[in-house]
């Protein structure tokens, strides 16, 4: 667990920013970041931490902005079996599942 990500989340929340948290909840194969890895995102798309070492962060941030709007958590799947994920670049051959939730 990367605690500096959670500390950043608390700081941003204290600044009244909109904040979402993305967490790797499952991995298969050669996933670049272990289960529990986290990314914190604010309403302007600023982010800190990592869920994939850069491969899918862009897509996760887009979904995170949406999650902040709706207030509903969602699960994202990335992997070689997923054409979209392949396009966003999880080319390492791994698969990951990411839970994106708003901080309230």
């Amino acid at each position, binding site marked *: 667990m990367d605690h500096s990500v959670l500390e950043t989340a*608390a700081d941003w929340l204290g600044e009244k920013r909109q904040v979402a948290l993305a967490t790797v*909840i*499952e991995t298969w194969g050669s996933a670049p970041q272990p*289960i529990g890895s986290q990314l914190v995102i604010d309403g302007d798309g600023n982010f800190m931490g990592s869920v994939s070492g850069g491969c899918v962060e862009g897509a996760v941030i887009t979904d995170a902005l949406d999650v902040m709007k709706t207030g509903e958590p969602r699960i994202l799947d990335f992997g070689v079996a997923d054409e979209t994920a392949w396009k966003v670049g999880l080319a390492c051959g791994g698969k990951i599942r990411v839970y994106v939730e708003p*901080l309230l």
Partner: protein
Amino acid sequence: MKAEILNAILNARKNRLSVAVFTELSSGLQHIVARADADEALDKRFRFDQSGIEKSEAGESFVAIHNPPLRLVIIGAVHIAQSIIPMAQAANYDVTVIDPRGAFATGARFPGVTLIEDWPQDVLPKLGLDARTGFVALTHDPKIDDPALDLALRSEVFYIGALGSKKTQASRMERLKASGFDEAALARIHGPIGLKIGAVGAPEIAISIMAEMTQSLRLGG
């Protein structure tokens, strides 16, 4: 995640306590479980730093393990300590070395660690020995090691190791028994220290100690 859950995680970290956060994936509902309240399966997750999915009739939950950083307390700024330190740091331990003897406890011999030139019984209560701390006593000197072992035995440290031959170990156990510890308490002390791998010289003894400490961390006991 609610701010109160986030703050509870950060507070646990500040107080060096292990907690797990359960997230019900269908509803997003979350709750926190302290390590003290963990069942066997969850305790294993704590020991292995293993976050992951748990399936039940209610559906899938994600269990996030939040363990505080590992810490190693070494009593004795001695030769073997110099070999243990880089291995412990590579395994992500924050290392603190305590020795009241100024000639041993010099920054030149121990760069990059917290080095405290003082008696263990004066330092350890302030430092706080907890369940994410490993403890080794390496001086062979009863007047330094014994009070430190006394405090380690009264704490929740996950590993207690004491350097010394079988003979040294036997007389140490007699002294600690005389000061009121029973067999079960004394069984927590690993001594002679380290796994039996035929270690020759300080670096290999350090390997055997790190191996034994890792075994206690991950498998318990």
